[in-house]
């Protein structure tokens, strides 16, 4: 083989690769954890229905973030210009002591104590409570994030879903992974 034929081989390879270009699954990439969690939260909303008394048609959907400013701002950015089922999305960061009962989705982080308090505050309202704290489902929360093999996974506590008056699509329950 001469170096010219090797160059040709290289070019052939390049062209070959271009031709084989097809859409495929995404692989291991790096995205910031807050942006990733925000994207999951946005997706959760797509597959959850709220009773019409708490979320009338065309009313804005409230997503509240407590003790996680990075996720709050990532979520604000994620929902910008997007709506779901005719509902505009509003992101607020009410703080632990704030009123959480108007939230439709409540993401809470920080300590277990703070998370448990937030869950208790919205116990009788249909709020999708989510956290990245490890024992959140044990503490009465509905959904929790965890990391498996470097990838973000989520777990929906079925009993908590049932108790909540929320309708969660089976898609979420199928993809749900026990931590």
């Amino acid at each position, binding site marked *: 083989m001469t170096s010219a034929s*090797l160059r040709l081989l290289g070019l052939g390879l390049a062209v070959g*690769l271009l031709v084989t270009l097809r859409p*495929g699954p995404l692989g291991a990439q790096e995205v910031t954890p807050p942006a990733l969690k925000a994207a999951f939260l946005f997706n959760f909303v797509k597959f959850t229905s709220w009773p019409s008394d708490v979320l009338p048609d065309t009313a804005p959907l409230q997503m509240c973030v407590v003790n996680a400013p990075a996720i709050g701002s990532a979520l604000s950015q994620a929902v910008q210009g997007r709506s779901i089922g005719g509902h505009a999305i509003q992101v607020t960061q009410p703080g632990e002591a704030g009123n959480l009962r108007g939230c439709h989705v409540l993401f809470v982080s920080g300590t277990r104590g703070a998370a448990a308090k937030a869950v208790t505050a919205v116990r009788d309202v249909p709020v999708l409570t989510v956290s990245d704290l490890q*024992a959140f489902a044990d503490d009465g929360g509905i959904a929790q994030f965890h990391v498996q*093999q470097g*990838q973000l996974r989520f777990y929906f506590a079925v009993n908590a879903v049932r108790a909540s008056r929320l309708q969660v699509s089976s898609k979420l329950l199928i993809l749900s992974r026990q931590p």
Partner: protein
Amino acid sequence: MTSSPRLLRALDVPARPSEVRRSGLVRMSYQCSARLVLTLALTLFLPHLVMAQAPLPDLSLEELMTLDSGQVYGASERLQPVTEAPASVSFITADEIARFGYRTLADILRSVRGMYVSDDRNFSLVGVRGFGKPGDYNSRILLLVNGHRVNDNVFGQAEVGAEFGMDAATFDRVEIIRGPASSIYGDSAFFAVVNVITKSGASLGGGTLALEAGTLGMQLARGSVGHVFANGADLAVSGTVERSSGNSRLYFPAFDAPETNFGVAEDLDGEHMRQFYARLAYKSLTVTAAYGTRTRTVPTASFETLFNEQGYPEQTTDRHTLLDAEWIRLFGDTRFSLRGSFDRFTYDGTYPRTQDDGTGRLVGINSVNGVRWTAGARATRPFGTRQTVIAGFEFIDNVHQDQMIRYIDPPLTLLDLQRRAQQTALYLQDEVKITPWLNGTVGVRYDGYEQFNRVTPRAALIAMPSPRQSYKYLYGSAFRAPNAYELNTKFFGESVVDLRPETIDTHEVVWERFTGDWLRTSLSGYWYRADRLITLAADDSTFLGATYVNEGEVRARGLEFEAQARLWRGWQAGGSYALQRALDRDTRVELPNSPRHMVKARLSIPGYGAGAFVAVESVYVGDRRSLADVNVPGAMTMHLTVTQPLSRSWALVGTVRNLFDVDYSDPASSAHRQDVIPQNGRTARIGLRWTIGTK
């Protein structure tokens, strides 16, 4: 038959199986291959660079679940975002290991920013931050398996080639944490920590059988099973056997004489490996077991052994056993971990040589038996939303640090040394959110050895003006304690009992940035001073004619840049550049085996059908100096891996390494008569994989 520096293991250098060019194939000049790489990269890359990936919120849940969460464990013994970790971190995932056809940890580290691996056709020596002294074992990087130390307790060596004893197919993720980390891990976390996270049953996902064959008589068979039982127990089991006969003829000019077969080593380049891995996780308990053995014939006649010896060829066998149990529970917000581990490392080297009077052959067997028990406890607790404290305790009992040298035929034991040593350590680290955008980390660790104590600090200040970028200032100190091998008074005389740990102080500034959802860039600059380096010095009064002293001092600085991009339609690209300069403080001369420049690039493209990939990687390591102060020219090598599923359960995988058959060498250690060791030319392997069960 007394003084035998040739039996010194610590004087030889690591390496990987390799092969050498066949005559007749064209040698590519590196300029030519560089041009090719450039052409390839430009043709493939540019048109797509502008078409960035869909924004994250528009991805489906399934797609989101394939993304890496960008978190690292090994920087602080807890999972945290890379941008918040008090270190400059890279990681390689199982997907990338498969796509790029990496077979060993050495292959993986070669692809990583700022690292280079030299191969002496026996062991693999890792160079990092310009430091890769030929003849040193990898005792200045810390190798962890799931956070547990696996550097052996005699040489302190992190074995990264096939000798590591674990199959890269069982790795879930490899974290590379740059900079000193002795404030968490103690000994050996000097330049970097490499944390291998192994696969669970869930990540193995079903059963796989793989058969591979390749050039140089390479054959491999692997079987693995992963399952999650209804009760939640997660089990992974994997076993691999692999052999290769290597190059049938290797030519070494240093031995080109009639009495040494004109410099040709015939059929002395083979190796065989057996690897077993199992992991069981149930509720709070995770138990990991691994055993690996590698036997390699050494063609280089290192340590003044007989060249081209066929009866008792120079040969080394490394065996690693690991048993590790970790129990983790949450009490309130506090996460407790209790851990107990057993490690065993044994080594046998066969060293054929001539009798001192020049008559007849003498075969020396050099053996090592290292056994270690480790018990550790750790608590991680957040205080409010602003502070996380990690406190830990570790006790290590090195029950065996035994070395033996004997001759066979006639049998004679020269040395039978049995030793034992214990260590205790305590560490504490506090991470504080000073303001919403400013994090501080301070840490300190105390290590108590029988001869000395060490206190090692760390401090980091991390500013995050937005979650998408961070600026880090990192200060770290680290030490490497003299290892049992260096402390052997029978070899090196009584003076070695006064050896003290060598130390390093590093300052580093890092800028990490995410652009959109598709590009991650990192720029870092570092400066370090390494003092009291444990260095071999001539001393006629000792058994081996040499001793170890705390003498070397090195000053170095460097700049590293890395970019990783997630492009259109599943394309992924990455590249890095490292510029470094490491000097001996007294002579102001650059260290041997210390390339100034390194450039790496990778590209992975989806092929036909789901799970099909074409992955190309190219690695350039710049000019280095050999021990004899000769320039070892830089070389660019390129590797190609194609993964093609044939049906639901069958897939074909092919890898060509050194695609353009580039002729290059690595600097040799003083244990070699050769000044450089030639590396393999083009090699190829092809494999068939059968998978059952779903992933």
